[in-house]
């Protein structure tokens, strides 16, 4: 058999015409139920989600120790608009417009100052803060899960929460006041993720694996530092303050917090939304994304930067709130599919609405406030167990 080309052994043709050797790919075996499957009505689902989140907002204004009726809450919220409209002097038809609007706008005050103060100074900032923090954590979680190709990743995978916790503990230890706690926490989160990213750049091999390991490393370093501060802190006032901060709460949310967090979160979420298509491609992994023309290093850097920014600022005003960033993206995928074009907007609305709901429970179920971090874990852990069991059955 040295020269295969010379050994010819032509076989005789079988009887009848030989069948066409070329096969058609339509023959590739397929499950009938997969054929021509309908696309779910995602638009309707999104509208329902927005309505659900909107009702969460309304409910949040009414529930609480100080009871306020739904009509009062709405009227109080509209009253600044009424004051503004009525105070504007229009040259010609001003009076007529004022008279026409007076039945719809709450011109006459039917509430007292206490109610006004509760709605504007306590509930409004708290509601806005809860929504912002929930939206930030779940969107950052969705982004990180895609980037690391791992649905079990949470937004603090790169050490953002551990760093923020350390920053807050440090500020409390030095009696620096509430504003400083927020700033220190924010800076701590950024420093931790920056360190993790720098360490990961020095590792060889798979960049995403290197990043996860660097995140674990930096996270444990900052957690240990926080523990040390707790050890040396004054047990009368500092230690409880640190412990309470680490459990997460929105009880102290102020309008200043909301302005600060709101601006940073919006700045961070816009690029994540704009890059939603490219994030789909990034979930295929380093090589495949590159082969489709994506600058993976740059895209990954932008995603980390934005997701870290929103996570750090969320943690800085609320303390450490687990599970939201892990569980909500899963729910989004169950309802809206895996496409980031839908997952990102859904995560914003669902994350915000969910944390708002949990915060309502936090301030109503017991005589004292229950820290949010505890409640989200109580709610999140069973949900997650359920998801894992469902996922196991599917595959």
């Amino acid at each position, binding site marked *: 058999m040295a020269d295969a080309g010379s050994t010819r052994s032509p076989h005789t043709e079988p009887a009848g015409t030989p069948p066409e050797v070329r096969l058609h790919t339509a023959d590739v075996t397929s499950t009938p139920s997969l054929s021509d499957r309908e696309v779910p009505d995602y638009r309707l689902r999104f509208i329902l989600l927005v309505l659900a989140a909107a009702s969460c907002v309304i409910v949040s204004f009414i529930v609480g120790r100080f009871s306020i009726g739904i009509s009062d809450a709405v009227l109080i919220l509209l009253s600044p608009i009424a004051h503004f409209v009525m105070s504007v002097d229009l040259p010609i038809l001003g009076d007529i417009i004022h008279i026409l609007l007076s039945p719809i706008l709450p011109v006459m005050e039917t509430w007292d100052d206490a109610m006004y103060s509760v709605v504007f100074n306590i509930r409004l900032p708290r509601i806005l803060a809860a929504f912002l923090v929930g939206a930030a954590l779940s969107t950052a979680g969705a982004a990180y899960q895609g980037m690391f190709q*791992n649905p079990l990743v949470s937004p603090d995978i790169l050490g953002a929460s551990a760093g923020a916790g350390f920053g807050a503990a440090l500020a409390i230890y030095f009696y620096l006041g509430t504003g400083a706690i927020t700033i220190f926490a924010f800076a701590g989160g950024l420093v931790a993720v920056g360190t993790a990213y720098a360490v990961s750049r020095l590792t060889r091999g798979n960049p995403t694996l290197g990043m996860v390991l660097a995140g674990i490393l930096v996270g444990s370093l900052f957690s240990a530092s926080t523990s040390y501060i707790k050890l040396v802190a004054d047990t009368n006032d500092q230690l409880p303050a640190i412990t309470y901060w680490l459990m997460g709460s929105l009880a102290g949310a102020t309008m200043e917090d909301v302005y600060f967090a709101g601006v940073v979160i919006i700045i961070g979420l816009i690029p994540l939304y704009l890059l939603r298509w490219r994030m789909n491609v990034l979930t295929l992994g380093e090589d495949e994304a590159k082969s489709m023309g994506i*600058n993976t290093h740059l895209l990954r850097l932008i995603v980390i930067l934005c997701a870290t920014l929103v996570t750090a600022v969320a943690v800085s005003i609320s303390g450490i709130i687990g599970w939201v960033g892990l569980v909500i993206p899963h729910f989004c995928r169950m309802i809206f599919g*895996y496409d980031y074009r839908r997952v990102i907007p859904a995560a914003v609305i669902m994350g915000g609405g969910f944390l708002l709901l949990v915060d309502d429970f936090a301030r109503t179920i017991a005589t004292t406030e229950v820290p949010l971090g505890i409640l989200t874990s109580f709610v999140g852990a069973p949900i997650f167990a359920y998801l894992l069991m469902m996922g196991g059955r599917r595959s």
Partner: protein
Amino acid sequence: MSLEISHLSFAYGRRTRLVLDDVSFSVKEGDLLAVLGPNGVGKSTMFRCILGFLRNYRGSIRLNGLDIKTLDHKEIAKHVAYIPQSTHPVFNYTVLDVVLMGLTNQVRLLGTPNQDHIGEAYAAMESLGIAHLRNAGYSEISGGERQLALIARALVQKAKILIMDEPTANLDYGNQFRVMCRISDLARDGYIIILSTHNPDHAFLYANRTLMIYGGRVIADGTPEGVLDADLIREVYGMDVHIEDYQYGSRRHKLCIPIDGGIGKHE
């Protein structure tokens, strides 16, 4: 469209062992090049160099005369598409979304695919017979269908060079041949196809050129009929085979038949 690889050598890290050792070849339009060789001889490494994933190699890879080291991923993606082994993805995108991802180069940086892009994706899926699966989950369809979806994704990328890393791995017997038929159609349409395979029969049946890589070196380069003989297969794979000429209807080709179960002797 041309791709020339000359004196390509590569070693991982600072290790002295060369994974690729002075590999040279070039391909032209309509070529279906089957790269053979045992596991771990550097086939995938060679593909990763050609795709621009690995850049610290010696020698040169020229795409239309341009050194690919001077091109960024976006530029390489216009000419070279990568079709990986069909794996189980973590995120269960619809088949349509998977195919649309091939259009990423043509989608605006901050935009999403538009109706024209969706039309292109449908056309590619139609041509491969998987359009009916457009809304099915990519991880729910069969391995053969996944491979076809990945090929559709490469087609919409409009690259003329397709690099396929063992396109028939993980496929059942029938789907292996169906997928290979589709691939040889593409070569006839003018695509340049470079694929790795472990089956010499795939080279005999579909390729017009074959490259045998062993120990990081090219030890045979030519038509499958001309270079794949029993001696070469014994040297590379350590098994005895009989190369049989076979005629069926008007078609003639060779087949590789393992002797005595392939490992020579029964103990």
